[in-house]
């Protein structure tokens, strides 16, 4: 069970070993990162298969919670902890790249790989940690690693984008830290399980709500939540495409997971859900309209990602098992689709007009784009339809005026989405004198793998939904979380 720390520790270790190792042997340096990721994925998958459905917790260093830091593993945590190394592997900067070219500097490559490994360790930590301050530290680690990755291209515009991203993100962290201080002031603990025990007595008032608002906005920076998301388009337009894929697909989902844990465990008052709903609606409307106006492919999908994450937050604001189910489903769907889009955007990084005729030169890539676009819009047999219908049904069942308004916003966003995505699809199959270069083989392969997963899940929607319902039910069970972290007898201590 204590192997649970390995998916966090191994990438950290590898990240710091990478640079000395790459000086000794270039090949070993290049292989270390992917091997570590494969090992992490294998460890996580084996633990997930072994644990048999009952969540467990690991007290780090044997210090019993609430004083010690605790890692908590349930289906949801495993799901995301497994997604992290797999997606990092799919979008590993060097794979499929003709490495070792004349212009590449092995030291630079080693530094870049180290940053990706740090990002992997931090995001895995976010998935597993059960202590708020520990989550804050992992969040900062992920932030710093992503600053480095975003500025990788070395262009001047990437530096400006990095600096703006850094300022916004650091300000978000300050807000989150203030929220954490308020929580500690009110409860005297930062252990999520203990917080959930104390929350009904100490965090009901406006102060608790203020803490939630601060933490949601703070942790929401990475999740592209409404007020602090102006960094999104410029960063995704200037960062390397695979980094953008990791940030938009993976890192945003882990930030969402943090917010969800807070919402489920600590802040169960209706005002907290309403706040999330309002921010989500604002994100959907602004994101989709901006995407409709965007004229280049990377920024179009960046804005669209803001809109999609708005839907994720709307879904989680519904509350209860159905809200969790809908939210997890939309988040996973977005993880698949948006990662694939950014993979395709590696070569298709120009204007939308410049994409004309790409479908004739790269039929598979264009076909995949259409498949993902259809799923994102929510065309019936595909996965996207089921995720969207879950959200809509949840909102309709809630029936409060604000929720009905959100429902209308989601439907409107779908229409806008359909408009701009079809516009691109039409261009892809248009005629042009100078079609853009087809996507690189590895990026195309990654998108194809994600496409196969999408079709597979769409075909097996019924068992997949059953599994996901189980995941959601377990994630929403507060008593189970508390009982797991604080077992009745100390015999369960690892």
């Amino acid at each position, binding site marked *: 069970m204590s192997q649970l720390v390995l998916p966090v520790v191994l990438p950290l270790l590898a990240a710091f070993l990478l640079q000395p190792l790459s000086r000794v042997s270039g090949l070993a340096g290049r292989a270390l990162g992917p091997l570590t990721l494969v090992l992490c994925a294998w460890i996580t998958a084996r633990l997930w298969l072994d644990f048999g459905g009952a969540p467990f917790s690991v007290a780090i260093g044997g210090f019993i919670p609430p004083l010690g830091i605790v890692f908590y593993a349930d289906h949801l945590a495993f799901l995301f902890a497994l997604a992290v190394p797999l997606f990092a592997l799919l979008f590993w900067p060097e794979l499929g790249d003709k490495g070792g070219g004349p212009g590449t500097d092995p030291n630079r490559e080693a530094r870049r790989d180290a940053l990706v490994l740090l990002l992997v360790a931090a995001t895995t930590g976010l998935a597993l940690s059960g202590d708020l301050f520990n989550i804050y530290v992992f969040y900062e680690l992920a932030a710093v690693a992503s600053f480095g990755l975003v500025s990788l291209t070395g262009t001047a515009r990437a530096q400006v984008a990095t600096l*703006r991203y*850094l*300022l916004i993100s*650091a300000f978000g962290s300050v807000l989150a830290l203030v929220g954490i*201080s308020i929580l500690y002031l009110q409860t005297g603990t930062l252990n999520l399980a203990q917080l959930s025990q104390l929350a009904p007595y100490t965090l009901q008032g406006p102060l608790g709500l203020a803490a939630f608002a601060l933490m949601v906005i703070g942790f929401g920076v990475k999740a592209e939540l409404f007020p602090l998301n102006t960094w999104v388009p*410029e960063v995704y337009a200037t960062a390397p495409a695979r980094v953008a894929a990791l940030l938009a697909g993976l890192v945003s989902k882990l930030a969402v997971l943090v917010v969800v844990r807070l919402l489920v465990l600590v802040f169960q008052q209706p005002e907290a859900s309403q706040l999330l709903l309002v921010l989500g609606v604002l994100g959907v409307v602004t994101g989709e309209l901006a995407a409709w106006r965007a*004229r280049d492919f990377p920024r179009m999908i960046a804005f669209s990602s803001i809109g999609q994450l708005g839907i994720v937050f709307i879904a989680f604001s519904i509350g209860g098992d159905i809200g969790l189910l809908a939210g997890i489903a939309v988040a996973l769907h977005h993880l698949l689709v948006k990662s694939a889009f950014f993979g395709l955007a590696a070569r298709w990084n120009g*204007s939308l007009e410049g994409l004309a005729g790409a479908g004739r030169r790269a039929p598979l890539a264009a076909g995949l784009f259409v498949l993902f676009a259809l799923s994102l819009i929510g065309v019936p047999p595909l996965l996207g339809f089921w995720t969207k219908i879950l959200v809509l049904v949840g909102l309709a069942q809630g029936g409060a005026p604000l929720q009905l308004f959100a429902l209308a916003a989601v439907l409107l966003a779908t229409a806008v989405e359909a408009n701009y995505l079809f516009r691109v699809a039409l261009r892809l199959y248009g005629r042009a004198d100078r079609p853009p270069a087809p996507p690189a083989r590895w990026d195309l392969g990654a998108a194809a793998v994600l496409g196969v997963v999408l079709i597979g899940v769409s075909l097996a929607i019924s068992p997949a939904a059953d599994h996901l319902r189980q995941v959601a039910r377990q994630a929403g069970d507060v008593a189970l979380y508390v009982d797991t972290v604080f077992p009745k007898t100390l015999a369960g201590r690892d």
Partner: protein
Amino acid sequence: MIPLSFETIVYVGAIGLVVIGALGLVLCRHLFRMVLALVLAESGANLLLVLSGYRGGAIAPIIGFGTPGAPMVDPIPQVLVLTAIVIGVGVQALAVAVLVRVYRAYGTLDMVDLRNRMELEIAGAAGIAAPSSAQEPAGGRPLPPVPAFRRAGAVGRES
């Protein structure tokens, strides 16, 4: 009326620092001032975190220090704030490093100017016309032009 105790003043000061930092980030155009505003906001947050473990008249939480049995302040926020300070310093150092690179590339640290130039460069790299800026009057329609193949008449009437 809340009695104006020492604690209240420090609380107000800590929150005030965060507010000043937030205002500075929003209102300043100069990037270095924005970094300084961030530093202020971070110190405010750190102060607030330390205060959350404060007890009036208590001593430092070190065993064997002071009279045994005397009240001690909560040590956990102090440990947390050490971590937060270290993280903050790291991020600020990174910000200044990127700032130097930006200045070397553009020769200015004016946020609005830099942002406009970045947008222009992004648009230029993507091969599209420059985006409409807040300083210029809006003109033209927001929709991109009709795709080339429609103009050529390869496809029939628009449905």
